[in-house]
């Protein structure tokens, strides 16, 4: 078991023939992901690492029965790409693209719910269930099959944490990058709900950061609904208010979104907090 994605995901890549598309199709195939189609308007008939390219999503879905889309198109075309995937019947959409306008994200997040689809991102590294599939740009070298569920708002910081788990021989059931934007499709609560139900997952790691109230909301949810042990790291304890710290969502605005508030909320929910990113591995190892 794993959450959200497994061996049944047949992936279509939107923005397949660009530099990123070509590189990551290769990486995903190497990881064992079923990449079945690529889409770039006007490039039908071409191939990328043997994967056929189509002019539009519907053609790709009709020919390959793809059920999942990985969106790598530039920000200004992302809304159109997500709508196109959802209208073609795609049920899992992973949006890697950064710098998508917030209003576009609001629209496609709500449309994905209306279409009963799972939308991960935007501005995320994607999702991987080691041993099964990887949909996104997470480096395959750090992943290991196992029983810890990881959900994170950040990219590299997650790689660092997952890698330190791997060094202790601790693997992951699923590692999901939720995204660094203020408007995202899949939240900590969605991931917690799925990890709690997943038989394979024994412990959950959350990687949060300043901005918004996703961690506070997660803490409330954990109190009532999660029986599995939860470990967390929060980045941005020293970030000043009013400054966007790299991620569009990482900003303390109008007094909301401070690390202190998140840490306090997690402590109240009995979540074990790590002082340094790699300490998570110590905490998890002690527990398992």
């Amino acid at each position, binding site marked *: 078991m794993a959450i959200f994605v497994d061996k049944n995901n047949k992936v279509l890549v939107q923005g397949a023939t660009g530099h990123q598309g070509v590189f990551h199709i290769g990486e995903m195939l190497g990881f064992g992901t079923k990449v079945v189609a690529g889409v770039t308007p006007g490039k039908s008939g071409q191939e990328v690492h043997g994967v056929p390219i189509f002019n539009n999503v519907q053609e790709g879905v009709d020919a390959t029965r793809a059920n999942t889309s990985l969106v790598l198109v530039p920000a200004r075309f992302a809304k159109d790409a997500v709508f196109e995937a959802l209208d073609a019947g795609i049920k899992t959409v992973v949006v890697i693209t950064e710098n998508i306008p917030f209003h576009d994200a609001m629209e496609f997040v709500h449309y994905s719910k209306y279409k009963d689809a799972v939308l991960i991102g935007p501005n995320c590294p994607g999702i991987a269930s080691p041993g099964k599939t990887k949909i996104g740009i997470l480096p395959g070298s750090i992943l290991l099959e196992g029983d810890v569920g990881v959900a994170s708002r950040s990219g590299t910081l997650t790689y660092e944490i997952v890698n330190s788990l791997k060094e202790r021989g601790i693997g992951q059931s699923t590692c999901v990058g939720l995204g660094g934007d203020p*408007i995202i499709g899949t939240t900590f609560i969605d991931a917690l709900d799925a990890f709690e139900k997943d038989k394979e997952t024994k412990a959950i790691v959350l*990687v949060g950061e300043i901005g918004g109230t996703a961690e506070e909301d997660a803490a409330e949810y954990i109190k009532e609904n999660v029986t599995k042990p939860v470990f967390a790291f929060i980045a941005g304890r020293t970030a000043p208010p009013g400054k*966007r710290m790299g991620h569009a969502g990482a900003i303390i605005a109008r007094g909301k979104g401070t690390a202190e508030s998140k840490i306090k909320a997690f402590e109240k929910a009995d979540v074990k907090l790590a002082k340094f990113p790699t300490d998570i591995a110590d905490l998890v190892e002690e527990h398992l």
Partner: protein
Amino acid sequence: MKLFEYRGKELFDKFGIAVPKGNLVAGEKDFSNLKFPLILKAQVPIGGRGKAGGIKKAKDLKEAKERLNEIMGMDIRGYNVGKVLAEETANIKKELYLSISLDRTKRMPLIMASAEGGMDIESVPDDKIFKEWVSPLIGIQAFNIRNIVSKLGMGKEESKEIGKVLSKIYKLFREYDCELVEINPLIITNDGGVMAIDSKIIINDDAMFRHNDVEPELVELTPLEKDAKEKGIAFVQLGGNIGVIANGAGLTMATLDALTHFKGQGGVFLDLGGTDDPEKVKQAFELMKKAEPKVIFLNLFGGITKCDTVATGVKAVITKEGINCPVVTRIKGMREDEAKEILKDAGLITATTLQDAAQRSSDLAGGEK
């Protein structure tokens, strides 16, 4: 991007929302179209300017010139006042609060309204603030407007006018990709009109590509931050003396946090992002040098980004340009051994763990300032 009040009011005017008559003033002739008494308002991208002396009344031209001299060039919490707006005064029967913002949790536009306008909304009790959410797929509907306006306890005509303003600011909020449109206060005048006395508008930076009519204004940024923004590098200046370069926003923040743990003080947040382009690495180091940190702390985790290609860029900068402060490096992940080999003779301080590197950087920077 935060708009100055006067630019927000230009947008209000464009969308048919009444604002007081006024214009920017720099000298005597700029007052000729305006009827006294006037209010002079410093244009700064932060709140609390009234308390800081940035808003002043003037009953005639002589007073107006004196007040203008006082306000122009004054420092309001680090912002030098370069623009002053003069406006005719309005007769106020009632002050309200009205805003539309992004609700990150519900991922919907959130309308907030209160009959307690004119003060900081943070200080208004929760039960005096009314909320209504709008589906981004269908946009604002008549029921949304009825729901929230009816709670304000206004008369029938006034409610109708407030509803019209709400509908207009929603249109503005959507068309200009706003993160926030706030009117505080929105006033009811003695003759029953509705007018926006202040404006606070934030446009989503990532949507600026489709708003070419809005001139970018980088007033909130330091000169180096502006430079970085133009180069597409995430760069934030902080109070301390240690410059942090890392790849990924979360990792960069976590690195700054680690420094604080060892009593070091972060001076620069520089996120290289997913790049290993030597040219970008070079630009990043050049920016960092200009910020004149006492110590540079390079923290890399290689995943898709290869440590050795970043290291090559770093070495090129150091050998060609020279760096006149200690550089502490901690490199981990994909091709870390190759990266360490490349940087071996570059005169850098190498550490193996984040904690070790943070400790050394903090010690070199002199601990607490």
